[in-house]
């Protein structure tokens, strides 16, 4: 499955670093890579083709969901660790970036990477502390962390405490006015989605990714085989946190205010887990398909005259059916059904 040529020595594996060599060495040949990338590219340009802002807003939500679900997939799907409170990275990154923009007048383009970095650092510290926990204990710990960070921010005066922070509307002038700002933030989310899809693919077909898959299947066996599990898990966790942190900054910048309950909403976390499961965890295409299906469905139901009052009940019923009859997710089901699709659907 991986690159035909072994990576130089076992350095990457031993250090637990990730590598993009799979792509360099032969990953390009896989149709699955181009399929995933092509789907994002086509989706991303839909608003330009249709020329309506309604489509842009819909695609903004879908792309955001895709990149958040794909990020989560790195730790949930590849490594097999259920990060239940993953929204904490979105919230904390958002807060750090928003603070820099609103209080210190930074540019969004500088603040967003810093927000991502902050989320990454949090994941690094947390990874050292809680990634030795297994199964439900890890999931519980991540919920606890989300609540802890929310309470901390609620009492942290620098971030406005319970009142949160507000952005002056005039700031959008620096980005060409609110209408132009909405486009540029859209392209930023589009760019981040491309990055995370390439990254997901790169990780999966690298030695680092194989190490993660081994951890998912049997952590002890992986350790015996020479996978440095603690550092591999930590790096997977960090990688899954950076993009959500950056997205948080962009999202709250766009909405012009931030407050603790909306930044650390556990409900959102659960939605992302559902998206990953729906599409098929552990596959590159799965989160993409899952997040798109879920978001599109919700958006459609919310705005359709027939279902708009019943949308939650309808969405719930559909999810129940999927979980009952297609537990491996859409992509998993297609793979098991049509063996010829194995090379295309990864």
């Amino acid at each position: 499955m991986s690159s035909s040529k072994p990576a130089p020595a076992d350095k990457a594996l031993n250090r637990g670093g990730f590598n993009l060599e799979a792509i360099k060495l032969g990953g390009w040949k896989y149709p699955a890579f181009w399929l995933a990338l092509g789907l994002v590219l086509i989706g991303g340009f839909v608003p330009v083709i249709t020329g309506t802002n309604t489509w842009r807003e819909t695609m903004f939500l879908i792309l955001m969901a895709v990149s958040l679900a794909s990020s989560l997939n790195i730790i949930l799907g590849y490594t097999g660790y259920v990060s239940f409170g993953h929204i904490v990275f979105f919230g904390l990154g958002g807060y750090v970036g928003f603070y820099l923009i609103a209080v210190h007048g930074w540019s969004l383009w500088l603040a967003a990477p810093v927000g991502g970095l902050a989320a990454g650092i949090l994941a690094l510290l947390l990874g050292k502390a809680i990634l030795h926990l297994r199964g439900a204990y890890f999931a519980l710990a991540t919920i606890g962390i989300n609540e802890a960070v929310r309470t901390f921010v609620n009492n942290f005066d620098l971030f406005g405490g319970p009142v949160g922070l507000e952005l002056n509307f005039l700031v959008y002038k620096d980005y060409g006015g609110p209408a132009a700002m909405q486009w540029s933030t859209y392209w930023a989310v589009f760019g981040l989605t491309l990055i995370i899809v390439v990254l997901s693919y790169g990780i999966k077909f690298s030695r680092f990714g194989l190490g993660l898959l081994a951890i998912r299947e049997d952590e002890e066996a992986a350790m015996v085989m020479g996978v440095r599990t603690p550092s591999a898990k930590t790096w997977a966790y960090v990688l899954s946190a950076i993009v959500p942190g950056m997205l948080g900054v962009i999202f709250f910048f766009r909405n012009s205010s931030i407050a603790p309950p909306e930044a650390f909403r556990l409900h959102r976390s659960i939605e992302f887990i559902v998206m990953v499961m729906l599409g098929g965890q552990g596959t590159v295409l799965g989160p993409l398909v899952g997040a798109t299906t879920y978001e599109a469905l919700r958006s459609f139901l919310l705005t359709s005259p027939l279902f708009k009052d019943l949308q939650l009940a309808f969405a719930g019923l559909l999810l129940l059916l999927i979980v009952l009859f297609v537990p491996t997710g859409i992509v998993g089901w297609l793979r098991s059904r049509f063996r010829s699709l194995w090379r295309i659907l990864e």
Partner: protein
Amino acid sequence: MKRLFLFVMLLALIFTAVQCGGAAPAPVQEKAKEAAADVKEAAEGAADQAKEAVDQAQETVKEAAADAQQAAEETAADVKEAVEEAVATEEPAATEEPAAEAAMTGEETVVTIGYTASKTGAQEVPSRGQTHGLELWLEQVNQDGVTLADGTVVKFQAVTYDDESAKERVQSLYTTLVEQDGANFLISPYSSGLTDAAAVIAETYSKIMITTGAASDETYQKGLTLVYQLYTPASRYLTGAIDLLGSLNPDAKKIAFVYENAKFSTDVVDAAQKYAESKGYEVVLSEGYDSETTDFAPFINKIAAAEPDAVMGGGHFNDGSTFARQLHEKQTSVEFLALLVAPPELDFAELGDAALGVVGPSQWEPQANYTPEAAEAAGVEWYGPTVADFVSAYEAKFGEEPAYHAAGGYASGLVLQQAIETAGSTEPAAVQAALDGMNLMTFYGTVKFNTTPESHGLQEAHEMVYVQWQKDDGGNLVKQVVWPVEGQSAEPIYPLAQVP
């Protein structure tokens, strides 16, 4: 390490690309906007021409009338063309269609009002009241419509979606409302956080948005120009309670604030503390509690130790009513208790004796003393139904007494209606001017907006009323308005007889 470095480089690269890429579509947008503006101008010009022509027709003889009609027809054709062009060029312009139609037909036009409501999620209950109020207004206004100066009758329709009490989809839904559903005017969602998100869209598309249920001052202090607040802002929620305390007991000196650690209550209490201190009160205790608090014993002990003359605070319904009950159970000596949000709700009476004497700020109450006579005395214009008419119509339609959220919902439509009537047009610029100049009393109270650039749209005139739970002759708990003095329906009870 090298790979990590490469990754960071890649991120930086994409972000630079994004920045350049982001700038590119802007001109397209600007162009579309320009086109929209041109069309709008053309439509406005045509509308004026048509109006002139109609006036002329009325005054002059048949012959001239025929000419005028021809002119009107021509201009109408122009407008139609312009509108078609607008539809073809770019969506935002399409929303000008009904306004242009008004000039075209001179008969009836439909104005679309767009808003999201929290049909599910945490804000469901207050948001439902707001929606009910708006629905009642819609039903009543459409009986006759609003007649403009040129004889056009304006009717209203509303388009609404569920925002799930969450921010994620608010901007997407408001964009849909404006672009796809052609909303001419917007009403805010419930709560300040969601309104912040919606305001960005309103400003982007130059749509007027009346806010109700969005009390935070900060929303209106960040450079918005088209957002108008109906609620008394958070900074004035408890100041009246402090005035009430002063009138009841000039010797009271010490106030304790115990409040929910959330955006709204913190905003309110911060402002109230400043006000109290400016009035010479001493804040002897200021403690925030977590939203899920169920045991207030530690706070009650602190209150007992501080021996304040008054306790103020609270947050939302559950925590506020629990706090009041536990204060009562512990027989704490409190002479004056004012809590946010919970006391105006009818369910608060379920606390029994613990509710007795508790004061609460409310945006509006059915006993409110706003009448055409009061308006005349205050030298402002009166508009819309009387308090009694509103209450009975609401009860007939929904089978319950309206709370202030419902009154706010109705008033948001009413204010828009009055502005359109004053402007004599549904043109955004004219309506905006009418709102800026508004100084009005309705059943909901007075309405006047700040027009300075620093806090444009902030509510200036509307006053809170303060309710207190008292016992009637039959020993039943009833809600009475005790402040301001002009609106009093009963004398306030003071001090609270909580110590047996």
